[in-house]
């Protein structure tokens, strides 16, 4: 069953001259209980997309259906009911917690605002949630600055899950953490997902993390999805040259002292190249690519790519 369905989403920011097209026509579905990974480099629009999907950032156009209801068009007054079911986990464990509130307040406030339970019940739920994310109960009386980065991320996860949402957008949840902590948080997310039957939209620039956590993966480049597919297929048979380059760029002990880096920089989203937006960096670009923008097309069941030369 499709829980979240986004169709032709655009996020354009006005700027001098041409507008900045951060997200430029993205459609995606997240099924109930599924983890969809969204990978791409900084500036590809993945974070803008994640926030626009939750209506926490700007959106120029596009439909957002949540559980069959039109979340994208819901008036401000009706948002609160949706908010309870859709949550977000942030990258920065320092900036995403209000430094003036105790952890207990941070976790109680959502329950109060949504009128869940009586006082005793709320307290119980806060304690229960602290247990589940692996924090001691006395954490409730302490303030965010008393915790390490990994513990703060646990608090952020507790806050997102205390309303028992159905979908959680995770925006680079482990990128700011130390390696020895990353695995703890990834495991925690996976365990919570299983226990609470969550759907996740997992945004990351780190392919190896997405490879571990995602059932299905979307690869974004300059505001567009250039490839999407089931996780095993995508890693083993990448069709788009950009996906291939991303996989090759991951440092790998097997390729000692050797890299075949993709040339050039990510072009600006203000000035998107004509034709295929990847052609300037693409090793197999032809004249066709310079003039015609390839649409996403199916290359195998559930596997789509936006490349003229895929599958040949």
């Amino acid at each position, binding site marked *: 069953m499709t829980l979240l369905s986004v169709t032709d989403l655009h996020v354009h920011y006005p700027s001098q001259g041409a507008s900045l097209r951060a997200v430029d026509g993205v459609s995606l579905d997240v099924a109930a209980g599924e983890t969809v990974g969204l990978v791409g480099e900084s500036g590809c629009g993945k974070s803008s997309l994640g926030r626009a999907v939750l209506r*926490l950032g700007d959106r120029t156009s596009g439909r957002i259906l949540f559980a069959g209801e039109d979340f994208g068009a819901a008036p401000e007054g009706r948002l609160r009911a949706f908010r309870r079911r859709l949550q*977000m986990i942030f990258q920065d464990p320092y900036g*995403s917690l209000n430094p003036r509130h105790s952890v207990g307040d941070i976790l109680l406030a959502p329950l109060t605002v949504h009128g869940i339970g009586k006082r005793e019940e709320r307290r119980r739920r806060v304690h229960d949630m602290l247990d589940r*994310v692996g924090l001691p109960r006395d954490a409730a009386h302490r*303030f965010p600055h008393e915790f390490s980065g990994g513990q703060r991320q646990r608090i952020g996860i507790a806050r997102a899950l205390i*309303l028992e949402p159905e979908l959680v957008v995770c925006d680079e949840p482990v990128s700011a953490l130390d390696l020895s902590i990353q695995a*703890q948080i990834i495991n925690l997310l996976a365990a919570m997902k299983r226990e609470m039957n969550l759907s996740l939209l997992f945004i990351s620039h780190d392919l190896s993390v997405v490879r571990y956590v995602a059932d299905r993966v979307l690869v974004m480049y300059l505001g567009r999805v250039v490839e999407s597919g089931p996780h095993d297929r995508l890693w083993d048979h990448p069709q788009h040259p950009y996906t291939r380059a991303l996989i090759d760029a991951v440092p790998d002990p097997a390729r000692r002292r050797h890299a075949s880096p993709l040339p050039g920089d990510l072009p600006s989203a203000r000035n998107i190249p004509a034709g295929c937006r990847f052609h300037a960096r693409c090793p197999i670009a032809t004249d066709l690519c310079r003039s015609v923008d390839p649409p996403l097309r199916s290359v195998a069941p559930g596997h789509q790519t936006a490349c003229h030369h895929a599958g040949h």
Partner: protein
Amino acid sequence: MPKTSSPALAAAPPLPATANPAAGTPAAAPRYGRRALRAFLRNPTAIAGLVLLALVMLGASLAPLFYPDDPLGMVGRPLLWPGRQWSHPLGTDSLGRDVAAGLMHGARISLLVGFAATCVGLSLGILVGAVAGYRGGWLDDALVRLIEIFQAVPSFILLVVLVAIAQPSVATIVGAIGIVTWPTIARLVRAEVRALRSKDFVVAARGMGYGHGRIILREILPNAMPPVIVTSSVMVASAILMEAALSFMGLGDPNTVSWGSMIGAGRELLRTAWYLTALPGLLIVVTVLALNLIGDGLNDALNPRLEKDS
């Protein structure tokens, strides 16, 4: 490989309450407000300011005890120099009014006007600044224009005009000073709110479905307060100066004595009886200095240059 690594099931990992030692944070991390208070109380200049202000306040509160009569009443020989007569330790002015009584009662007016006007300015400024900064869009544009208009007019001239129109009294002076000082606060609050509005914890609050009022009052404003608190201590000082200047020009409340009006009255006798201007002038300097010292101390305590928060 099968390890009890599901953190939801496993015992909680060891959680040291201490901050990361490598980051150089102190072992015990008290909450922000208490930490700032401790830093403030360790600062000798801030303590000096606090002591001076406390002395002025003590004088003001003891005024009715020492001089229960109207300080504007004639009590002795005019132009009596300080130290000549025990009953009037600081002498009398040209109309035979007791200078010490004037100074103590004047302190009441100066402090009252200073703090009340700052409250008016703060309320207006925070309201306008928070709305403009949070709401953005056309309302922000309009409010910023309004702030600019107020700041384009020389504030003291505006103050004189306002007081002249409204008839001088303590209440109108307080209101008028509030009206000329709020734009500074509004600008400051707006900038802080705009910066905080895009912070992740505010986005998170929106994501939790919190109402706008709750987000502004509980999430944003407490974090925007430190610079406002620092500025307001200096605002009290400048309000005291404004009141003194108004009174000096004869635009003070005619029914009360104030430091400014005492200086104004003594102005013509500057050569012969300089103590009539010097004594209230000295008190103004001391009070303003005290408030500025407190402001500096607050600034150091609330906006530490090196936020050791990692």
